[in-house]
């Protein structure tokens, strides 16, 4: 509690509360609006924030169930949203597992071993991390085109390609895990090595069990980043049933085929789980993100 307080403090506190509440209302308007729109019937309906005639039409379609309206007309789901969500989750889980495995072992070497070119590699990883993959899409496209001629499950229009391409973005995670390893006293592992353990055993049986929290964070971080990845997936994936959610979702809002209500339901359905995961893990995620400075 501050020792010196001006008389106007009470009013300032009140003003701050009011200001922040007003700000939050404005900020949340788009999100609340989308939830509201997902319950309106039709794709062009206007109305108040609380829909007068709530309808589950868009939710049926988002869940892949054909919807029969009161006029007896049956609408087929326009896009396989659940399939897209499944594709996204599949790609993100496999990517996150691979990223976690590979960046943990790398981080271990960077944190505990001495070898030629260590400082150089670490610094160049930080520099290259800032180059957006969008700019080398032509090259990535050509690369996967070539690989795909010989290894079909890694070619264009495969999930394998998207998964493998996501491995390019590991530097951030390596730095995050390395930072955590640095904060763990290395005398434990040294003791184990003196007792006859190999380097690998010291890593596997001593350091890893102590680092579970950071591994969880990196897994979630890698998962979310892969789910949200747009440019590479948009070039590598072509078929409608192969798209990820990030690439597919925009098809709802084409000028010629504007499905605003259907989009709203699909957006809430697919965005909610990711939002909840993020909010739940935000404390750790923010720490990891501030280390690399991406997003926003």
């Amino acid at each position, binding site marked *: 509690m501050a020792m010196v307080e001006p008389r106007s403090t009470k009013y300032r506190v009140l003003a701050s509360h009011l200001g922040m509440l007003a700000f939050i209302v404005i900020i949340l308007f788009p999100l609340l609006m989308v939830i509201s729109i997902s319950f309106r019937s039709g794709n062009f309906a206007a109305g108040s924030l609380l829909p007068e005639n709530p309808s589950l039409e868009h939710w049926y379609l988002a869940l892949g169930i054909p919807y029969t309206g009161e006029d007896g007309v049956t609408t087929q789901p326009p896009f396989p949203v659940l399939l897209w969500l499944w594709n996204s989750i599949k790609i993100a889980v496999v990517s996150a597992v691979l990223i976690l495995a590979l960046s943990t072992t790398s981080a271990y070497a960077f944190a505990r071993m001495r070898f030629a070119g260590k400082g150089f590699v670490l610094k160049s990883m930080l520099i*290259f991390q800032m180059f957006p993959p969008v700019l080398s899409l032509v090259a990535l496209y050509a690369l996967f085109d070539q690989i795909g001629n010989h290894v079909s499950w890694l070619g264009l229009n495969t999930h394998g390609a998207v998964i493998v391409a996501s491995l390019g973005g590991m530097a951030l995670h390596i730095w995050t895990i390395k930072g955590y390893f640095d904060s763990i006293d290395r005398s434990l592992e040294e003791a184990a090595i003196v007792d006859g353990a190999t380097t690998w055993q010291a890593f596997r049986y001593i350091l890893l069990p102590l680092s579970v929290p950071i591994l969880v964070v990196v897994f979630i971080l890698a998962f979310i980043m892969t789910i949200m990845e747009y440019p590479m997936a948009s070039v590598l994936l072509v078929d409608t049933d192969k798209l990820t959610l*990030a690439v597919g979702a925009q098809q709802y809002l084409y000028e010629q085929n504007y499905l605003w209500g259907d989009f709203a339901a699909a957006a809430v359905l697919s965005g909610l789980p990711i939002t909840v995961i993020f909010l739940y893990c935000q404390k750790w995620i923010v720490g990891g993100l501030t280390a690399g400075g991406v997003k926003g």
Partner: protein
Amino acid sequence: MNIRRCLGATDINGLTTMITETLSFPGIESRHSMTRVFLKWGALAVLVAAALYLILALYAQREFVFAMLFLVLTASAVAVFVSKKLYAHRYIFPAIAGMGLFVIFPLMYTVGIGFTNYSASNLLSYEQVQDNLLSRTYQSEAIRYDYQLYRTAEGYVFWLEGEYQNLTSAPVKLNEGERSAPVLPVSGKPQGEPLSIREIIQLRGELSELTLITEDGRELSQASLRSFAAIHPQFTLHGNGSLTNNQTGVTYFPDHETGFYRDGDGKALSPGWTVNIGWDNYLKVVTDPSIRGPFFEIFVWTLSFAVATVVFTLALGLLLANLLQWEQIRGKAFYRTMLILPYAVPAFISILVFKGLFNQNFGEINLVLEGLFGLRPDWFSDPALARTMILIVNTWLGYPYMMLLCMGLLQAIPRDLYEASAMDGAGPVNNLFNITLPLIIKPLMPLLIASFAFNFNNFVLIALLTGGAPDIIGASTPAGTTDLLVSYTYRIAFQDSGQNFGLAAAIATAIFLVVGALSLINLKLSKIKV
């Protein structure tokens, strides 16, 4: 034993026991058994064999750059996993290889493309173009046969009636995928009724793929529903690389300056091949007015967009962080969660939500504005309004990140500084500019630069929100007033019909330089120790 006692003395008894237990775990001692060694070398051999197959296949297709890439990758993998000296590198190899393959190689390859005319019209290599042209055929008008088809128990029998001779084939199993058949000269027609035109039309797919081969090796293919004709190669290759069109007699010479086969009048033959054109792409950006104009407009907008985003998000984030740090405010957890909500929603969803809300005709924002003020702004067709919209959306997306950063940094400022300033009668504004900002700007700087670089290349926002629209008038490549440099290159490469990869790569190289400079500055500022 000695060491264990020492560790116990430093009060980590539990962990010491854990180590002892794990180390005495059965099986660990026998890890160096023969099976493991065999498994290890076997796996390595399989991987190397697969990699060599890929390299040879790429080499055979004259894809030397890619063959080289995988050769380097495989060689370093073998070196790292065989050499005892490079033991530490085994741990980092997969990650470094991933970065090399998917970040550094594409980067260098892109820089390389920037010096070529690689585009939809010049996609192949010289050899591939030659192969493509030499594999082309045409049907001669001179050697032509009318045909009739007879169905027999063993398959379809062809009867070809020519000017000089008549030919017939053995039964061809058209329905079972037989696609070539020999034909022999005969005098008499086969027995039975020929197939009607309707039945022939039903077989047109199979017939169009069929090749009939005469005694002297001439190939015939279907020329019309009623006739077969001889196929000739369209081009003949000469020793000096020139090609003669056998049908028209025109000779084409390879032009390695522009990557096309050209006849005497300079008319080009499609497709062309990729050639090195030096700095032409860069010169084009500087000299061609239909590219220079849009390029500089987009460049200025990209810079102002990135700066404005950083300033707006920082101002808003810092203000909110200050409020949330204030001891007098209650319900901080609630405010914090609500305020970072825009950050938690996946960006690709919230951007599309804004796209819908800002829609000029059905969007809720225009409905509200019309109800309140009678306004219907053209968010997507007026350049200034479109840019305003983009900044609004990006501030919405980006302020929580800045707020979280500032909250962390504000906590590190000693409280008594504010006490002292309050004693001296300073207000919040004074505090902000004389205490808070000077103290947080230094640790914040690298993060602000990173945020600048990120927004400089904020492709997803533009691609999903406006797609670059409204367009810049008079541009020869697709260019929009809200395009950032990065979405501009994407559109040149992937959305234009010409797919000018070379030009796109040249602009991408320029962006690489900007990003590279920024990240070097960042590395200096953040004083990272490795």
